[in-house]
């Protein structure tokens, strides 16, 4: 690469997502964006700002606050040959469209004996950390990962924010993209892709030899920070970013645990029935004889997410919790 001519400007996760949407709308006239406040408002989190002016109201389409109707309309439009990108404000609101997502989007291909694929992308925010209270802060992507027939993506880096969408649109089946709200302002240098994003594989974000920190989405920065702290103590932590919760890249986890013999799973959802429980169970099933310690889990406290800052912080997995869990596994 000609370093002398390449300018890597700084960008944010929000801008990376917006650029991905812009590229999708530009490159395929079957693509349109639809959701609550995506047009005139510019997106509830500012992701689609400017796209209405660029592409017009047919392709950047404000919807009523009717999650079930506009998600279902996305499914129908996908069946009829378009490539809708549907935005739901938060995962909490997506529950109002759960019937459409589970009973239609995830099910139609199978129920129809393979006749009706649903090439639909649904984007939504997830997670806490911005003092938004219980009804805007939960992490329910693990519930969606329970459902056969859909793909669940959790972009945690600028590169994934920028490039996962195109791969999601190329998938003939429904893809749900969970964007952690605390990541939107994350800023850094966005490198050009060397190859198309592969949605089937997890990524090692930091190699290590003593323990595997397995995580995704909004918890990735915390796990990386924990790995820094642990490195200062002489503990080498490998950080695995799952990236895709369904289908889950078991092989990446198994290979990492075979090297490190210990694992901490970090997941912002509640511990009970969490995605961390699934990952932990799989490590037990597939890597039991590689383990030198029980699998540790760092999850949110079993409480609806509180508003007060100190309570919210206490409820969420923090870097210190990941460090402490690592000590329990290593010591």
């Amino acid at each position: 690469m000609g370093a002398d001519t390449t300018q890597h400007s700084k960008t944010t996760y929000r801008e990376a997502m917006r650029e991905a949407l812009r590229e999708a709308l530009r490159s395929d006239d079957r693509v349109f964006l639809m959701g609550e406040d995506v047009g005139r408002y510019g997106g509830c989190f500012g992701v689609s700002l400017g796209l209405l002016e660029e592409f017009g109201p047919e392709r950047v389409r404000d919807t009523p606050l009717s999650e079930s109707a506009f998600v279902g309309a996305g499914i129908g439009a996908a069946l009829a040959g378009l490539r809708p990108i549907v935005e739901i404000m938060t995962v909490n609101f997506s529950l109002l469209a759960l019937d459409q997502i589970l009973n239609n989007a995830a099910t139609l291909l199978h129920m129809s004996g393979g006749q009706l694929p649903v090439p639909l992308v649904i984007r939504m925010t997830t997670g806490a950390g911005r003092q938004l209270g219980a009804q805007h802060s939960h992490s329910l992507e693990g519930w969606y990962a329970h459902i056969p027939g859909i793909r669940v993506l959790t972009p945690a880096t600028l590169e994934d924010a920028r490039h996962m969408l195109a791969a999601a649109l190329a998938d003939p089946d429904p893809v749900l993209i969970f964007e952690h709200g605390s990541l939107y302002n994350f800023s850094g240098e966005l490198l050009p892709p060397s190859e198309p994003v592969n949605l089937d594989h997890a990524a090692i974000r930091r190699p290590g030899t003593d323990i595997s920190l397995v995580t995704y989405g909004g918890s990735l920065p915390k796990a990386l920070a924990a790995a820094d702290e642990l490195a200062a103590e002489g503990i080498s932590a490998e950080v695995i970013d799952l990236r895709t919760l369904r289908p889950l890249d078991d092989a990446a986890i198994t290979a990492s645990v075979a090297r490190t013999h210990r694992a901490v799973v970090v997941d912002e959802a509640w511990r009970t029935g969490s995605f961390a429980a699934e990952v932990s169970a799989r490590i037990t099933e597939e890597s039991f004889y590689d383990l030198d310690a029980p699998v540790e889990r760092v999850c949110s406290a079993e409480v609806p997410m509180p508003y007060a800052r100190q309570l919210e912080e206490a409820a969420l997995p923090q870097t210190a919790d990941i460090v402490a869990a690592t000590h329990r596994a290593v010591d």
Partner: protein
Amino acid sequence: MSVARPTRTRKDPAHPKAGKKAATTKSAQRKANTGPPTGRTGPEHRTDLLEAMLRIRRFEERCVELYSAAKIRGFVHLYIGEEAVAIGVNEALTPEDAVVSTYREHGHALARGITAEAVMAEMYGRTTGCSGGRGGSMHLFDASRRFYGGNAIVAGGLPLAAGLALADRIRERANVTCCFFGDGAFAEGEFHETANLAALWKLPLLLVCENNLYAMGTALERHEAQTDLAMRAASYGMVAWAVDGMDGEAVEQAARRAVEGIRAGTGPHFLELRTYRFRAHSMYDPDRYRQKGEIEQWKSRDPISLLMDRMREDGELDDKELARIEQRVTDEIDHAVEAAEQAPEEPVGHLLRHVTSSSAEAVS
């Protein structure tokens, strides 16, 4: 926007519920079908309508036998008594139009041209079924006929239908999407969300409410605070009519007018078709919530008898012709059952096919 009322309102003595909770709006006196009829008419057309209705009726009567003999299983919701709705509406649609249906969809599927053989094989759970044996009675699909189910969640097909219509609008195709649902759907948010969205965006959507007066076992008066369904649909700013759903010709005329309006770009139209299912909600249902007298009254307006009487009066049908039609339909269904009996079962090794587009074939 107009709210026209049925050709036979409840004040009409011919209506089995005459005098009971008569429609009160002024517009109730107006007729849905003013002006000359459009589309095909005449004796041949009536014969086609009759044969199409008889196909559904005889098909489902055979389903009852097969269900009792444990040849077919699952929840089976029969359409007997409502045939005029499927047939009348289908007459107004082209093959390019889309249809979204409910779990009581044998009639819609057959009306849409899915063969009795493909539907029966699906009931048998065979490979040759229209959903490859994965759907059953409640989930009939045929992409080639733009037949999108087969949706067993009450009102669950409505948003999907709006999306099909939206795609046609965005692509500037002249198609109409027709969505069938029952009166029970009025209690679901999805009906209202979809009605609002469709009217707001002027989508080419035909909303067909089969008001058979019962949401499963709960009577309309016990599940809706306001039972004037067409009036409620009209409140969203769409053209809405209530029509006698036992009169296939009236249904067809109303549907044709609605479809013409939709194709002319006037947005979604709503038809409330007042009909009745002669049998219980499903094969499991002991039907304890309806009076025998009520059922008998409605049977006196059987849509098939109604059309036959009219044809006989006009000298368009005699016993010989009827026997020929019956024989054709019987042969077709006999053949469908025989074919289903002999059709191969999907190998269990194919269990995980079609979960995703790249699904493996092996059993995990």
